[in-house]
């Protein structure tokens, strides 16, 4: 018990806990704003990406360090949220919390004119007959529960 009290005193003297908390909070706010930017674009049918200022590599906005050079300074680039289905799986028994959808496909698609793929949620797909590889899809909106909501086009 004495040791614990000493440790607590040390932590509070150093101000470690307070600083630690505020850093976490700052990080959370940063995450939130980055996520909000992505959601705003998605609701407008677009995909927000980052271009590395050091090497020019383009990747999803949600990535913090460049996949190629580990740089962490980016400029935003927006792409049309359309592309071709690369692969998908269907769920015709919706898990708990997803009952509202009845059936859906989780789709990976290659974003047109962008060097990356994203995944999203396409409602109303019951089996492989309802969706074939290569089908053109677009981002319809963003749902806090399901992520990117897609539509066939």
């Amino acid at each position, binding site marked *: 018990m004495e040791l614990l009290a000493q440790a607590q005193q040390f932590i509070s003297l150093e101000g470690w806990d307070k600083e630690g908390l505020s850093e976490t909070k700052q990080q959370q706010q940063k995450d939130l704003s980055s996520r909000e930017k992505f959601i705003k674009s998605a609701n407008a049918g677009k995909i927000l990406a980052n271009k590395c200022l050091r090497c020019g590599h383009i990747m999803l906005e949600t990535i913090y360090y460049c996949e190629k050079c580990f740089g962490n300074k980016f400029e935003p680039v927006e792409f049309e949220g359309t592309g071709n289905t690369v692969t998908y799986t269907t*769920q015709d*028994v919706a898990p708990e919390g997803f009952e509202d959808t009845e059936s859906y496909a989780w789709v990976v698609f290659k974003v047109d004119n962008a060097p990356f793929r*994203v995944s999203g949620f396409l409602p109303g797909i019951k089996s492989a007959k309802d969706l074939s*590889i290569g089908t053109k899809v677009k981002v319809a909106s963003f749902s806090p529960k399901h992520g990117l909501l897609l539509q066939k086009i």
Partner: protein
Amino acid sequence: MTSYKANEEDLANVAVKNHENGILNPKAHVQRKITVDDVLKSPVVASPLKLYDCCPFSDGASAVILCNEEFAKKVGRPYVEVIGSGRGASPAAVQARKDITTIPSTVDAAKQAYKMANITPKDIDFAEVHDCFTIAEVIDIEDLGFFPKGTAVHAIREGATRRNGEIPINPSGGLKSKGHPIGATGIGQVVEVFEQFIGKSGDREIKNAEYALTHNFGATGASSAVHIFRRVG
């Protein structure tokens, strides 16, 4: 399946073969003979995977004693030798992979292990691989260099991965039949190699095996481990 003209029956063949082996393993979780038809008629979990394409959740434990050769000889009990070890990493998100029919972490880990052991995939007599789902075993055995890309499904169909085949895969029954007690699965594969090498694997024994390989991954292949073992004596 689209890229290599494989079908759901090709995946089912993996499950049927692993159950065939698991029946001979007294420690297997699901000791039941199944047919291709049983797999195809089982409920869809996430298309094209059905219930019998997926391994069960299992309870289990496994342990090995790691020691140097001097100690092993002094103790005087049977032992096997680890001659190669490799570890690889790849993106966990499926959409972040350039090709979803390969797991880069397996390829990297296997290369390191073969190099350390100074042998090639052709030298391996049997392997225990991570068949969490039937498709995983198909991808694994190509990534480990046993079959050229896109050909594993044909080899499986012809029986190449059965106990009497060219390269027996998962003689223990694999995750599919022996079970998948997550944390104990990797070491459980090593236990199978040990039992095979010291003649304690009963009717599922791969005769005259000298080299064996184990392959285990986590998080859709974000991290893979490959080990190569040699029979002693």
